[in-house]
């Protein structure tokens, strides 16, 4: 991110000062939710939390590069910011953290952050890495067959690209030039396994060659660069140009999840160094430098986020848990059978 002021006209197409502020707010809101998850975990109120810290910029950018109500997201478990930027509310987020009965993603069945909001065009994942990527391709195939205008964006980590199913998804999409964007959020680790033990290439984007479509790289900690890159991929998909593999270079600030301790496999210095790239203060400074926002505006937004998340936490915590009977719903359309 360059630091010299920029004039309004150079904003990437589709972005306005209002949208920039919205993006910033989504990042702040996400950070607040993220921190809340870990706080609740430490308090013993929820058994598990996961984080997207270090990924917020590419995630908000991806959501903003899509057309809500038209395009589809098939995100992965690290995409809190993408989900919140695409219409998931703090209440919904907290409901899944608390695993409440009325959690709309899974009724408290899946781990947190396994989004599924069909009416807002967010499709489900399981915890089985990379299994959702072929689904995104199938959705894009359906859109193409029906001659619809929708683009599907699906995301995954760099480790996920080792799975055979990932290859099959890429290959299928390439053959049929489907309207799909593959977004790799490369944070250099798959739990403890560093990228060099995961693949013999420097860039995940280099793998696109094998599938006959472009692979592009962006700084995933820079919302503007990320937006421009994803948007171009989305436009290519929408206009019949086929898939793109976008690799967003980002980093994982915290341990894999609340069950992990990254000091077992990473040095403290390495972790600290990566945190210097924190997208939230950097985007804040960028917006301030250019006069899109001022200190008061920032404080307001942070307060609003805090309030939203507080309210959502209190509300969600008091929602009912699933009961034993709820175990038996939604096995088949016609109920449980055997």
């Amino acid at each position, binding site marked *: 991110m360059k630091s010299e002021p920029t004039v309004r006209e150079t904003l990437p197409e589709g972005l306005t000062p209002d949208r920039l502020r919205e993006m910033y707010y989504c990042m702040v809101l996400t950070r607040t939710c993220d921190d809340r998850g870990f706080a609740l975990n430490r308090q013993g109120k929820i058994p598990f939390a996961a984080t997207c810290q270090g990924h917020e910029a590419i995630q908000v950018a991806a959501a903003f590069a899509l057309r809500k109500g038209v395009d589809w997201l098939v995100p992965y478990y690290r995409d809190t910011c993408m989900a919140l930027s695409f219409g998931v509310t703090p209440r919904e987020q907290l409901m899944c953290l608390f695993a409440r009965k009325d959690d709309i993603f899974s009724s408290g069945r899946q781990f947190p952050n396994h989004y599924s909001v069909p009416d807002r065009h967010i499709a*489900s994942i399981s915890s089985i890495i990379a299994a959702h990527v072929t*689904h995104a*391709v199938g959705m*894009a195939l*359906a859109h193409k067959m029906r001659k619809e205008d929708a683009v599907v964006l699906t995301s995954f980590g760099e480790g996920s690209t080792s799975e055979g199913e990932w290859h099959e*998804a890429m290959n299928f999409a390439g053959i049929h030039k489907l309207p799909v964007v593959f977004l790799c959020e490369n944070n250099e680790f798959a739990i403890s396994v560093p990228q060099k033990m995961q693949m013999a290439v420097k860039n995940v984007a280099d793998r696109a060659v094998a599938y006959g479509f472009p692979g592009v790289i962006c700084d995933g900690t820079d919302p503007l660069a990320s937006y421009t890159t994803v948007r171009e991929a989305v436009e290519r998909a929408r206009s019949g140009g086929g898939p793109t593999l976008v690799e967003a270079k980002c980093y994982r600030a915290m341990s894999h999840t609340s069950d992990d301790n990254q000091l077992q496999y990473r040095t403290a210095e390495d972790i600290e160094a990566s945190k210097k790239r924190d997208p939230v203060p950097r985007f804040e400074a960028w917006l301030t430098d250019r006069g899109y926002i001022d200190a008061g505006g920032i404080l307001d937004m942070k307060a609003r986020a805090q309030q939203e998340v507080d309210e959502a936490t209190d509300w969600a915590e008091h929602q009912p848990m699933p009961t034993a009977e709820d175990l038996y719903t939604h096995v088949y359309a016609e109920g449980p*059978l*055997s």
Partner: protein
Amino acid sequence: MAVKNLLEAVRETLHDALARDERVFIMGEDVGPRGNVFLITKDFVEEFGHDRVLDTPLAEASIVGVAIGAAMAGMRPIAEIQFADFIYPAYNQIVGEAAKMRYRTAGGNTCPLVIRTPYGGGVGGALSHSVSIEALFYHVPGLKILAPSTPADAKGLLNSAIADDDPVLFLEHKKTYRLIKGEVPPGEYKIPMGKADIARPGSDLSVITYGLMRHFATQAADELFKDGIDVEVVDLRSIRPMDRETIVKSATKTRRVLIVHEDNKFGGVGAEIAAIIAEEAMFELDAPIRRLCGPDVPAMGYSKAYEEAFMPSPERIAAAMRDLAAF
């Protein structure tokens, strides 16, 4: 009514579904210009186009995974696995994904999807083109598994599977494709899933079976009838859901049960059938519950001797019936 073999019944059902419902499409290896390796989709591509009769890459996980995504997006895909032996690479998509989709999203996402595949032996398919796979899937809640044995049932159940809102694994026994002929009702004929068929009513002994073995068992039963032993043959047709009621009723009526399947014995579908009876009707029986199944070896081999030694034959079924009747 028109008389067709089982292959023709499947073909007609697929054809009519494509013609009737725009959401339906077929995808799989060699289903396009080749018309499927058994010629089930022959000429479809000319009539419906490459989009709706889609030749996929050689990659089963994506055949099912892409079908799941299309189903989630409102289509009604019919995915084909060329031979049941090649379904293993798609196991994750079927068991880990499709079967759990509705449940894991509390009804938010669903995948109405049919996976058709030819299974079973008796056609010289050697070690990797002869397997029975029903027992590798029937334990999985969220899936439905159909294994029709007559042309009419194939049509009736395939139509129900296509109309169903959940994933269905549809098993076609290769040996029945051309061997088994019968009348096939016209139109969008449907049979409810989960209902067994009394292939042959009888009073002295029940055979519970499905697939090709329905025919072998009926043949054996006709043989025994000459000697005054009246065997009832129950064809499950649907492996999951399974028709407990008919199983228990037949067992209670004849008081002797022989379970027959081609698949390996240990942990096969027959285990659950026996367990159901032992749970619900054990004191109604006059003899132990017997199973005549494929032996517990990895597969039948290429050489004819292996195939013959592996598969229950009408003769061996008849012998097992006589033995049980005499208990």
